[in-house]
């Protein structure tokens, strides 16, 4: 097996995550799509770290994980706040920012 198979897998997962963000209406599922994309990039980072024999890729994947954790906390807090005021978690209903 070639190590590029991992890269192909990461690309497939990234594309599926992007399609989820584009197609789903539930804000939480959209958020899960973002998480899937972040995970796919992490897999690519780890694979390239192994490909080049350089640990920097793994360090970057670690930083991506930490930033993703912070992002999830704030994002879910925003979703909960919007749900409290609008009683809906659908991304279509959020047009408050429209003038």
């Amino acid at each position, binding site marked *: *097996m*070639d190590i590029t198979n991992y890269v192909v897998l990461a690309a497939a997962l990234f594309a599926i995550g992007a399609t989820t963000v584009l197609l789903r209406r539930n804000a939480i599922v959209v958020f899960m799509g973002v998480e899937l994309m972040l995970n796919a990039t992490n897999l690519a980072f780890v694979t390239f770290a192994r490909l080049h024999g350089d640990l920097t890729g*793994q360090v970057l994947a670690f*930083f991506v994980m930490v930033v993703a954790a912070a992002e999830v906390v704030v994002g879910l807090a925003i979703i909960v706040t919007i749900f409290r005021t609008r009683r809906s978690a659908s991304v279509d209903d959020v047009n408050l920012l429209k003038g």
Partner: protein
Amino acid sequence: MNPAGLVISTGETVLFWVIAPLMVLAALGLLFVKRAVHAAMCLVFVMVSMAVLYIAQEAPFLGVVQVVVYTGAVMMLFLFVLMLVGVDASDSLTETIRGQRWIGLLIGLGLAVVLGSVVARAAFPPAVGLNGGDPGGVANPQALARVLFGDYVVAMEAVGVLLVTAAVGALVLTHRRRLTPKQNQRSVADARIKALPDGVVLTPLPSPGVYARSNAMDTPALGPDGEQVPQSVSRVLRIRGQERPAPHVPADELVHTPESERDA
């Protein structure tokens, strides 16, 4: 460093070909499954499998962090928010933008094609590997720590600040200002005393006639004057009409009680 380059073992090949299709299937579940909880479960499967792949790819530290941070913290947070927002909050089916579904599908497929062609056309150097199996090599967590706290120590500090900021931000965002005064024991008691003229009873309701007249909860207690006390029977039983009138009790009990156990 291994001069012969990286040799991928048969075990890893089998592991990859077992896990990768399942991962893609679970990720597609995220796209097609109706309920948000099922989507979360699909994502948990993808993340656990990803941790297995990390460990197979000479990144045991990242594999453990993946399980702890992603499946342990992030996905549990997702499930908590799903419980808050309502598990059955399903997608609306009306399209606000016409043809959005097909446009989204087209863009997603286009992205997949672009990424696939880039990966196919790129010339990768021969894989080196991280010296994982070499007994003389540095074990992964130590080497990773050396890079993390040596070359990237400033970024590490910045990430710490970011985490604190995110936690405070989440607290501020979800904080709700109290609009009514807080209810405590004293205010509840005051309210009940104030409602006394409207027929509210301050004391606990009388208990039913269990053991006094029979062995069931549906028998009303008898007051000191020998009259039945209707409030002593559960409100539900009274509404259903399942309460037993007290005068009938002795006769019923006589039928069901053996001769030897009767009181004098």
